[in-house]
């Protein structure tokens, strides 16, 4: 009953909007302008899976079977669908779709702690000053915030989501909070999951809501200073109030959030766990037109007990990722959706006394799939024992430039901070040609 009423409202609003756009050239003009300003894009959306803590490259995408035991570890490599490409034994489902994957094995940088590593990979810029391990720093806008500022999402949907929390350096920095991620906390795996505050409280039926809106209209007599140079904060409040209402009324948004509508078969294939259902929600957001989604997955900082932990973790990780990629391929949206899997850095070659690996930024692996990325390839290599990237050595700047270029955002662009300070979007805008397709 509620949704019916809202759908009507939404439709009416659309009509109004359409009319206004026709008459003033407003919205359609704006959309046209924005698509012209952007370059040729391969991807419309990005799902970035952030493995917080720094995933081991040995036990995931860069196994080293020929290294001594204390380096190669307990796991063995397995062959994939693509001859010559091997991955860790606990990733059989990804191995089976290796023709869709591009594995980047040769990114290295010089930031060995979480705060700094997150900043470098999430923004493409190294932290300006040395930062501590526990630090949450922001010196530069994140990939997601930049994307949100360049690519609008349709129908009042936010352009940048982060589930279930923001990553350390995932914020907008000087771009302003308008481009901060819309954080959806809670677990979509829970039977009563809903995106917080975007729907009316249960006890509010449609009539009550209408009377509230009417009441608000009646009491809202506060003077607005429309001239832009007056910087009246009530205009921003009005914008956000309207955006919020749009989101609440947007049938498209509400449908995307309603993961309970997804058939059981699909929900099962993604895995009935937090990560699995968040990945499924991400796919739904992509379908609704959201350009950037981060899945912030904690617990990859394996200083001890690496092998038992991964024996538990990798199978669900493998199942979810493979399901996500394959499901999007079946739906024909993988070509326009870039899936990325990475963390702060790789992990040390020598297994430590606690059976773990420590931070190691001389080598790390990043997984690319979709978004026009040629699959079935490995780019770059570490040395025989996995100590360091040695072939086709690439930097976080290359990574960031590639993501932007795929979205049609010019990585050589210069941004301006509020105080007029110019900042290169990516200081080295060179993209990774093999991934560009």
């Amino acid at each position, binding site marked *: 009953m509620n949704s019916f009423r809202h759908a009507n409202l939404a439709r009416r609003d659309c009509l109004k909007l359409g009319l206004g756009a026709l008459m003033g050239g407003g919205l359609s003009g704006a959309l046209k302008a924005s698509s012209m300003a952007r370059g040729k894009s391969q991807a419309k959306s990005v799902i970035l899976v952030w493995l917080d803590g720094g995933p081991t490259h040995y036990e995931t995408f860069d196994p080293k079977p020929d290294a001594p035991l204390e380096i190669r570890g307990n796991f063995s490599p397995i062959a994939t669908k693509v001859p010559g490409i091997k991955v860790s034994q606990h990733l059989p489902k990804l191995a089976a779709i290796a023709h869709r994957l591009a594995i980047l094995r040769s990114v290295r940088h010089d930031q060995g702690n979480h705060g700094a590593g997150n900043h470098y990979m999430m923004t493409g810029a190294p932290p300006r000053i040395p930062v501590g391990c*526990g630090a*949450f720093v922001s010196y530069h806008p994140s990939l997601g915030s930049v994307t949100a500022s360049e690519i609008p999402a349709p129908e009042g949907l936010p352009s940048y989501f982060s589930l279930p929390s923001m990553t350390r350096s995932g914020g907008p920095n000087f771009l302003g909070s308008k481009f901060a991620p819309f954080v959806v906390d809670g677990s979509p795996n829970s039977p009563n999951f809903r995106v917080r505050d975007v729907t009316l409280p249960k006890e509010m039926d449609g009539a*009550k809501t209408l009377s509230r809106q009417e009441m608000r209209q009646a009491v809202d*007599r506060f003077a607005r200073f429309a001239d832009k140079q*007056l910087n009246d904060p009530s205009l921003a409040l009005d914008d956000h109030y309207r955006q919020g209402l749009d989101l609440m009324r947007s049938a498209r948004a509400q449908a995307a959030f309603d993961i309970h509508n997804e058939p059981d078969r699909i929900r099962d294939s993604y895995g009935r766990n937090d990560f699995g259902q968040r990945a499924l929600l991400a796919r739904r957001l992509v379908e609704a037109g959201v350009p950037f989604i981060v899945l912030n997955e904690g617990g990859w900082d394996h200083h001890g007990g690496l092998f038992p932990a991964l024996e538990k973790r990798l199978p669900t990780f493998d199942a979810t990722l493979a399901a996500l990629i394959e499901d999007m391929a079946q739906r024909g949206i993988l070509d326009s959706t870039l899936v990325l899997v990475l963390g702060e850095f790789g992990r040390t070659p020598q297994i430590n006394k606690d059976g773990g690996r420590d931070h190691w930024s001389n080598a790390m692996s990043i997984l690319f799939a979709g978004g026009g990325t040629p699959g079935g390839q490995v780019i770059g290599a570490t040395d025989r024992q996995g100590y360091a990237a040695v072939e086709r050595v690439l930097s976080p700047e290359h990574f960031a430039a590639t993501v932007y270029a795929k979205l049609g955002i010019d990585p050589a662009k210069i941004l301006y901070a509020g105080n007029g300070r110019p900042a*290169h979007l990516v200081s080295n805008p060179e993209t990774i040609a093999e991934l560009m397709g």
Partner: protein
Amino acid sequence: MLWLTTFLLSLGQPPAGWRIEPPSIHLTGKWSPCQVRVLDPLGKDRTSESRFSITGKIASVDPHGRVLALVAGEDKLMVTCQGANIEAPIRVEAGNATPPTFEKDIQPLLTRLGCNSGPCHGKQRGQNGFQLSLFGFDNDFDYHALTSESRGRRVFLSAPRNSLLLKKPSGEVPHGGGKRLPADSPAFAQILAWLETGQGRTPANTPALTGIQVFPREISGGNKEQFQLRVEASFTNGARQDVTHLAAFQSSESVLAEVDADGRIRIGPLPGQAAVTARFMDHFSTCQVTIPVGARGKTLPGRLPSEHFIDRRLSDQFEKLGLAPSEPASDTTFLRRIYLDLLGVLPRPEETQAWLGDPSPGKREKLARQLLDRPEFAEFQANKWADLLRPNPYRTGIKAVYNLNSWLRESFRKNTPFDQFAREVITAEGSTFRNGAAVVFRDRREPEEITPIISQLFLGMRLECAKCHHHPFEVYSQEDFFRFAAYFSRIGRKGTGLSPPISGSEEIVFLANSGTVKHPLTGEVLDPAPLKGKPRAIPAGEDPRKALAEWITRESPLFAKAAVNRVWADLMGRGLVDPVDDLRATNPPANPALLDALAEDFIKNAFDIKKLHYSIVTSRGYGLSSEPNQRNQGDGQNYSRHYRKRPRAEVLHDMIGSVTGSRADFAAMPAGSLAMEIWTFRSPSEFLDSFGRPDPNQDPPCDRSGDSTMVQALHLMNGKGVLARIQDEAGVVKNLAAAQIPLEKAVEELYLRCYCRAPAPLELQAVLNIAKKPGSARRQILEDLLWALINTPEFILID
């Protein structure tokens, strides 16, 4: 009118015809041009409208008035402008015999061309393997990088013209930085000459640069007017030299006044003030640009009718800029503003009614005195300072954070003078379980970690840059930074150090017997010294931090300014210096006289924080309406109207508590506590997080977001917590619904609670009309009304 003022002012000056600056032009050597300025009889800059010529062959002049020597001799510069003909003698001396040298001639060129800037070869790892020191602060390093590295390809001795140093920036060989040095430019010729003559270093006995001076120091102009700047350098031997062509220019507000690479300022359409800074090597000089409001209908510029010291300085500024102040705010607006600004809480309905009904003339002052004595003032101050000092409990331990918080609150409850407060922080020692201030040194441990936070908090200076290289916008070097850090070199600690994420133990901060700070490059042990101040001898057994605290609170001119600027920003919506902790020559205050006067008043009142607040809130300037008039539309930095702001997360939370009569419970706090009394940002609250309270995991942790977001809008509309408070069975709405009073009275009370005013008859009628609908229950109507009131800008903002 304004034009007339300018005209009359100029009549006061000695009669002068058209002028050329400098009146005579001396050029030495062919690579040192001289920029001239042309001024009309009113002193107005006409350089951009002038035509320049030189008849003879000794020098050339470009269309912008830059004179370049060719051969020795004497001649005249002829200038034509608006029918006037003026001339200036030129003398060229044969300085060409001295070949260019590195420090004096080449380094300034590299800086001017941007080679050693942050994004290019000046960045920490250089560019394409070629690294220079940032802005050329390290001559030896740069000379070596140019002449010896890369197997001599940058400088190709046998064929200097083929050196990469020339071929790259001139675009003959692909260059990532683009074409910066055209092969036909004087700079190219000069670098080539340097290469051909043996790449000399500048002899050590060459007169050194002592400073630079930009001309003019002040400019007042309107839309589209242009001004040419000149920059002169002075040297230890008293010589002066035009360095306009080597200076870099930057405007603090490009929107108001933009400056191009040659030092030409172009005024934009908006009135206001800007500072244009010229930099030559490590020296700065600033030109203040004032753009008065032009003719605007019948409104004239005006003063505030008050002799309050703040109002006098504000009024001076209004006159200078042609602004007219807005009307005084209504009593209702003022009441709500001063409660939220001083206490962070809303007045109760009976307080509102009593004050609004008070007819006495001095009631604003009386109210200010009463509010400053309320306990909420101290809690609110502590909440603000907690943003700046309070560490992450996972890092330093829960008990330590709790102690620091208690110490902070106690300081503000006692109204500790601010200089004493600063001394207690800077020199804190003892157990982190007994002296909360000592926790600052549990959190920040290394001298170079402590330095930036102390300088930022108490001097309003961002020294961070100077840790790694000479400060790019300041006079401070790395040595200055580490000498400051040396004051913290003897902090000893015993007990259990940090062991995140628990770190629960006690640590004792004391004066260690030894400890030094070394220059990171030279390794030299540095004695403590204040920034550009005189070091004083530190007795053997004394903690060096004492000397620092004395210097900061008693000698540094920045201490009082930084403090008053913070308070001013809190109350007025924007700091006189913005951002509040970035006081430097290249970021001048919007109203320097006012900042000085506030600092003076603060010192005179023995750093009494309450008196400082009292001074500000009793000024007419504070009590202005936010509504603009024709003459202050564009003013965003001179306080000719009040600037609206959103209260911080805790205040907004407590406001909702007060209008709903329902207080939320926070973990680890007594029931019914205010949000601004919470001792750790770790106390979970969706509301506070949505509204941007600092995340203690952020580093620096003081970042608080004052922006509004869609998440906030959604939370106010639909948040479960907000709704539950409106519907609270012990809350205001429930009680009003049950009370034996007419609906009008209930509506009025909600208006009083939320907006601090009674509804206008039309507003009341509109609400009652909605209430008349069949089937509307009284409680439901009042809940809807309260929800509606909370979800409007009139509630969310401080007007």
